[in-house]
């Protein structure tokens, strides 16, 4: 289990347990004692204004304004005269992320509170919490207990169904999630229509990351101004971050938006590299990490985004090209294979990047990589090709010097064995098994 560490701000942690509680699991009584009762409004819609005032954005990676999604579902439901569906997305299909599983383990009731509150706000008659199948034994059991506790206390007004995501990288994607819940393979579908218009069972559907719902559950109790007490003016509030440094377990920490990155990366040399945002994220240099803060406004200048709060510092003895090659290979194998550009582009990008990492690349290789990244971006039904292209392009920039070294048969890393590209335990966590048959998607 990942360890939880307390950041330096006194208003925090909000979602994670207080220091004195350590990593203790919160049962329903402890939850209500710490946060107070679940503040139902007894009216649809009013919560949406508070969420707008708070400026809460999605914590699943896209940072979409929550009130706009709520309003879209509310409006579609009203217009089409169909009760909507609300779904808490805890699939966390990104291998490098662990904050959602940690949150569901430590504070499931906050997430479940948030789910009830959005259900009430949009008038939903169906509520689903989606978690990762690989965590069925710990997180899954914890959730089943939590739901049972709430049933016994008749706390939930909309019964919550629990469902599990297959171990596919795309399983947490909004439309893939809905496909899977509907008994189909966990692959994306084309949008339009948006899921807020027509989603699960054809009903207007709200899909919200579990961390987002936890914040919402607190905003409903303490108000928008409280939420804005930390963070920046344009990106208020706190967020959970998954920190990975050197060897050892990842840490989950709750931090205010706008926090200096160097407090998360630790001391990094200018020529070291940091991966922000997971496998659809961006590699930046240690130099950049020393000056940037954890918010989209400043990260944008480096071509990066906060994403789902993953901050990985590449140890000095590791090769960024080898690590990235492993990740890109994984991303290619996790393509749904539905769209021509992604199906054709990602395997070729993976092969070419592997050549780069092995020092077998020619001048054509880097040209091919740039061209293919340009060809795949934006041309799939989902953002998988875009995200992969983003990772690859940022690696080509951040590891340009390393690529030159590899071309001369050298590598700056000491932890890859005798030759560049020789296999050893990768630093970036890559699942061993990828999809092979249709069953792997169901």
């Amino acid at each position, binding site marked *: 289990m990942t360890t939880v560490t307390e950041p330096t701000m006194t208003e925090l942690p909000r979602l994670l347990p207080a220091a004195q509680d350590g990593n203790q699991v919160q049962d329903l009584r402890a939850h209500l004692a710490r946060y107070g009762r679940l503040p139902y409004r007894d009216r649809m819609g009013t919560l949406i204004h508070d969420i707008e005032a708070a400026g809460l954005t999605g914590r699943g990676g896209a940072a979409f304004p929550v009130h706009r999604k709520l309003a879209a579902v509310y409006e579609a439901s009203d217009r089409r005269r169909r009760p909507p569906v609300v779904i808490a997305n805890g699939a966390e299909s990104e291998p490098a992320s662990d904050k959602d599983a940690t949150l569901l383990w430590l504070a499931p009731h906050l997430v479940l509170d948030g789910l009830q509150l959005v259900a009430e706000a949009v008038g939903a008659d169906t509520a689903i919490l989606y978690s990762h199948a690989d965590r069925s034994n710990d997180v899954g059991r914890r959730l089943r207990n939590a739901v049972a506790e709430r049933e016994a206390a008749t706390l939930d007004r909309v019964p919550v169904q629990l469902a599990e995501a297959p171990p596919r990288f795309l399983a947490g994607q909004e439309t893939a999630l809905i496909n899977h819940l509907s008994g189909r393979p966990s692959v994306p*579908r*084309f949008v*339009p229509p948006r899921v807020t218009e027509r989603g699960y069972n054809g009903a207007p559907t709200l899909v919200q990351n579990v961390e987002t719902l936890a914040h919402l559950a607190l905003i409903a109790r303490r108000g928008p101004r409280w939420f804005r007490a930390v963070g920046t003016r344009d990106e208020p509030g706190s967020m959970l971050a998954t920190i990975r440094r050197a060897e050892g377990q990842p840490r989950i920490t709750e931090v205010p938006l706008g926090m200096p990155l160097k407090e998360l990366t630790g001391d990094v040399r200018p020529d070291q590299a940091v991966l922000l945002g997971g496998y659809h994220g961006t590699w930046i240099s240690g130099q950049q990490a020393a000056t940037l803060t954890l918010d989209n406004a400043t990260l944008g200048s480096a071509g990066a985004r906060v994403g789902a709060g993953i901050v990985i510092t590449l140890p000095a003895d590791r090769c960024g090209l080898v690590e990235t090659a492993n990740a890109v290979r994984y991303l290619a194998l996790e393509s749904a294979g*539905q*769209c*021509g*550009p*992604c199906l*054709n*582009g990602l395997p070729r990008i993976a092969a070419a990047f592997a050549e780069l990492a092995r020092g077998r690349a020619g001048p054509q290789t880097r040209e091919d990589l740039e061209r293919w990244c340009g*060809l795949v971006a934006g*041309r*799939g*039904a989902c953002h998988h090709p875009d995200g992969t292209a983003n990772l690859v392009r940022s690696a080509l920039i951040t590891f340009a010097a390393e690529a030159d070294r590899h071309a001369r048969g050298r590598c700056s890393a000491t932890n890859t064995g005798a030759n560049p590209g020789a296999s050893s335990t990768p630093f970036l966590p890559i699942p061993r098994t990828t999809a092979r048959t249709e069953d792997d998607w169901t």
Partner: protein
Amino acid sequence: MAEKLIVNPIDCKGHGACAELLPELITTDEWGYPIVDPRPIPPGLERHARAAVSACPTLALKLLRSTT
């Protein structure tokens, strides 16, 4: 009323009839899949755009009312 072309990349099999009929707005990539100009269709090409939509064997190419 401005319209624009979109392609459903899941239905698209890279047949290429669309690019034959509307080369001004649709080209094919090195794998045969269409690269569609996302801007509103210029007047004068509307008829050809409709023909391209009809010619798609998988109905992947669609005309959408442009909201931009």
